[in-house]
């Protein structure tokens, strides 16, 4: 069966769906310039579970749950649900940890970098430039034969673990379970974690985007990588579509506010906006996908992608427990050191995990 969503017009439609969906989710209550942010939302989930105690960023985000379950359903329907795993899981876990730390220094994943730009936040330019630079470094490793090695086919049941985890988290959200007075589950009373669209809207948006992205293989990192590595402009047309449609929707909804200073959930430290996303971009290339793509892969049974996602959630806990994550006031005393450690980890990984040609 021909997959219409893997065509050029298909990927443009998917980018548009994400851009419009994100602007609408913001309109319905999600945080400003954060209609969808995979890194931020996984961080909020880590907080809701009590893995970190930053009170302003705790919520079980239905969008993340929807991404995994939407991809899971789409993959099952298309006969692409194929449990597989065993390709350097521990390295993938730490790539996830450092990708999240880098993203939380900048304050956003690649999707949010685009959405911030579409909302007028000039600081996103530094983040996107850093992302491109990180991907460029990663590509040099790919050209030298970098590979995390082969994955192996796994039993069907093992592929169900990640979707089942997400379904369980959805039940905890719907029933607002309290395991002890005051939580967990924690729900922010103020700050970005308290800002969210109604659960029904969020989960439906998540399911639709998850299914579309699974069919179309939408990936922001892959888009930039393919342009630089093989001059393939397929995925980038979806990314540009996301940016343009989010921008147009923001204009229509009155959400476009250009400038650098005073942007929502953002800071103006240009050097660390750039280097934070350099780290994230490099980690994404080595792991083979942006945070969104890793969720969709987890849904279709890729257990290595699942490990990366768990690494990102652990990374969010580390980033907030050890005061590495930036805030609108700027970077912290420890954040830059964490970026450097992360870059060293990624460079060692890139140099040492090479197959002989």
């Amino acid at each position, binding site marked *: 069966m021909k*997959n219409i969503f*893997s065509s050029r017009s298909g990927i443009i439609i998917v980018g548009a769906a994400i851009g419009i969906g994100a602007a609408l989710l913001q309109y319905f209550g999600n945080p400003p310039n954060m209609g969808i942010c995979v890194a931020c939302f996984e961080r909020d989930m880590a907080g809701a579970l009590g893995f970190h105690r930053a009170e302003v960023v705790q919520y079980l985000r239905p969008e993340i749950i929807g991404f995994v379950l939407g991809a899971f359903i789409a993959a099952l329907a298309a*006969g*692409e649900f*194929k449990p*597989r795993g065993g*390709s350097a899981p521990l390295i993938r876990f730490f790539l996830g940890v450092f990708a999240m730390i880098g993203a939380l220094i900048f304050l956003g994943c690649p999707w949010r970098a685009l959405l911030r730009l579409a909302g007028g936040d000039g600081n996103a330019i530094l983040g996107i430039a850093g992302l491109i630079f990180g991907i460029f470094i990663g590509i040099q490793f*790919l*050209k030298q034969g970098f*590979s*995390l090695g*082969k*994955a*192996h*086919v796994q039993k069907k049941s093992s592929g169900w673990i990640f979707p089942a985890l997400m379904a369980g988290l959805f039940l905890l959200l719907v029933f607002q379970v309290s395991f002890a007075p005051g939580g967990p589950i924690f729900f922010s009373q103020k700050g970005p974690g308290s800002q969210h669209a109604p659960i029904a809207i969020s989960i439906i948006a998540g399911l639709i985007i998850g299914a579309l992205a699974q069919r179309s*293989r939408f990936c922001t990192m*892959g888009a930039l*990588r*393919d342009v630089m*590595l*093989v*001059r*393939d402009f*397929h995925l980038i047309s979806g990314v540009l579509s996301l940016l343009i449609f989010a921008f147009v929707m923001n204009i229509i909804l009155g959400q476009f506010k250009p400038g650098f200073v005073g942007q929502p959930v953002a800071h103006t430290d240009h050097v660390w906006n750039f280097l934070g996303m350099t780290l994230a971009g490099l980690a994404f290339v080595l792991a*083979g*996908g942006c945070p969104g793509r890793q969720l969709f892969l987890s849904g279709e049974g*890729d257990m*290595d992608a699942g490990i990366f996602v768990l690494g990102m959630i652990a990374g969010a806990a580390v980033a907030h427990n050890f005061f590495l994550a930036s805030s609108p006031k700027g970077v912290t005393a420890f954040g830059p050191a964490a970026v450097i450690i992360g870059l060293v980890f990624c460079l060692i990984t890139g140099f040492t995990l090479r197959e002989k*040609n």
Partner: protein
Amino acid sequence: MIELDVRGLSCPIPVVKTKQAMDKNPGEPIAVSGETAVSRENISRLATMRKYSIKEDLISNDEYRIILTPAGQ
């Protein structure tokens, strides 16, 4: 014919290996064996861009083998 086995490798390694095989062996047909629909789509797109014709030798739900032949062969 160059034989390339990308089974078990996740994106983008299959397409990187195919590109390297094309660069190293210009004018030679390449047979690629792989597993995922994603890698097949990516490799097919690369082959089309580089004016290779694509023949599907084996397509099943679990694996595929495609033969890429450069123009003029």
